[in-house]
Each structure stands twice: as C-alpha cells, then as structure tokens.
C-alpha cells in the first residue's frame, strides 16, 4: 500500500510540483493550502509524512508543526520543512518545534524523493 504524504504550501504551483514529483515516485499525496488546512487534513487521516512550507497565511509552518506534535497520532510522524527560509536561526526554531529536516526551495525532484525515501522508505 502506497504511503501518504501531506504537502502544505500556499503556492498553487509549488503544490502542483510537489504532488507531481511524489506521485511519480509512487506516493499518495494530500495537499493543503496553509497550516490550518494542513492541520484539518492531518486530523482527518494520519499520514506517513508531512512536508510543509513555513511562510503561509492563516497558519505558518512552525505553528502547524507545534500543533501536530501536540496530537497523539503525530508524535513520531516525520515532518520536513520545504521553504525559502535558510537561516540557521529559522532551522533551529524548526528543530525546536519538532521538524525532522529542512529543505530549502527550490527543490530538485530527484533529491526530494531520495530524502523522502530515506525518511519513510
């Protein structure tokens, strides 16, 4: 059975490219347009991996991670940030919030899939 990845990004083109790359590698993808939408969809179905942007309206990526980590079903689910933010300060905040990795945009599909496979197989 294919593993499911929740991809959260406010950019339609980014969501499209992330979903395309992950589906081509055999994963199922649930897309969300911001952190709040991501949180709602994560509650509907526990996914195998969360891939989230940081800067989004309504709820940003760090807040989403903190909220997910408070849910029993997401204590150990891997969460990766995919963002234009690349400062050590932001990475430290991400790590403290419970992120398992940091990917700086733009992503290369091949490298993204390698990381996802490493994290969830």
């Amino acid at each position: 059975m294919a593993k499911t990845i929740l991809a959260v990004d406010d950019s339609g083109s980014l969501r499209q490219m992330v979903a395309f790359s992950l589906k081509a590698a055999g994963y199922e993808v649930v897309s969300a347009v911001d952190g709040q939408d991501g949180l709602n969809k994560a509650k509907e179905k526990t996914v195998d991996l969360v891939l989230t942007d940081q800067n989004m309206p309504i709820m940003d990526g760090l807040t989403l991670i903190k909220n997910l980590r408070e849910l029993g079903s997401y204590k150990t689910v891997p969460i990766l940030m995919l963002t234009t933010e690349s400062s050590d300060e932001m990475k430290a905040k991400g790590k403290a919030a419970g992120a398992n990795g940091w990917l700086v945009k733009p992503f290369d599909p091949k490298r993204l899939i390698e990381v996802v496979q490493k994290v969830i197989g």
Partner: protein
Amino acid sequence: MASKRVPVAELRRLLSAVSDHGKQHLVEVEADLMQTTFLLGEAIEKLGASFMAIHEAVMTQQQEIDTILSSAGLPAGTNQKITEYREKIGEEVNAAITGLQFQDMTSQLIERTIKRVNGLRESLTALATHGEGMDAEHEHEEIARLLVEMSANLNTRSDAMKFGLKKSVSQRDMDSGEIELF
C-alpha cells in the same frame, strides 16, 4: 495686516507637496507590482498546465514504444537509444520542475516589495500631517521639534515595517536548495 510667511509654514507646505508627489508615484508602483504578480501567476498556471499535458503525452508515447519494442524485432542498439532518450527526458522534467518553482519565490519578493511601498506611503502621509498647530512666534524651536518628531516617526514606522516583513529571498541561481536532516 498682511500675514507673516514664516519658515515653519513654508516647510510644512514643502513637506506636504513632497508627500503628495511621492504617494502618487507609489500608487503607480504598487499597481505595476500587482499587475506583475497577476501576469506571473497566469504565466505559471499556463506553463504548469502545459507541463502536465506534455508529461502525460510523453508517458503515453513511452507506453506505445514499450508495446512496439516487445512485439517487433528492432535493430540492435534501438533499445539502448530509447533508454538514453528516456533518461534525458527524465532529467529535463526534473529541471523544469525546479525552474517552475521560481515564480513562487518571485511572488514572495514582490509581496515584500508591495509591503515596503505601503509602509513608505504611510510614512509620507505622516510627513504631511506633522507640524499642525505650530506657533509662528517660536519658529526655530517649532522647526527643530518638527524635524525631531518626523525623524522619530519615520524610525518607528521603519522598524514596524521590518518586523512585519518576511525574510527576503536570497536565491541567486537556478540550482536546488540545501537539505538538512535533524
């Protein structure tokens, strides 16, 4: 008795004119940036749709080629060539996916610029309204107070703007970004 034209009144008039002129330009800048964002969004939507359609067509074509390859006796080396073409197509698809993400970063930069433009417009508005109710009998003190107030106001607005802005996008090439697992 003719009214005395004091420097402070003249200064206020000039500041107001600068403010109006500047705001007029900023309105135009904001409109152009909004239109740029719209055009970029439209362009990337069409490019994305074409990309998906091309990819689907290529996949269908590859399935047809597989069928032909399995049923026909093709010259030696054809399989190898087709595999090489497939790999080349795969590399180009990956490069296109990376390239298509630059609209997102450009939009973030434009959004940041629009916020700065709005912040500057607010500062110019403040510039025009400063110094109302000045005492013409103490013009030197009033001008000094006006300039100090203006400077403080601009600093406050500038700081507020900085805190409200997302970090700037610093990507300078078309390569993919770094990856770090914690």
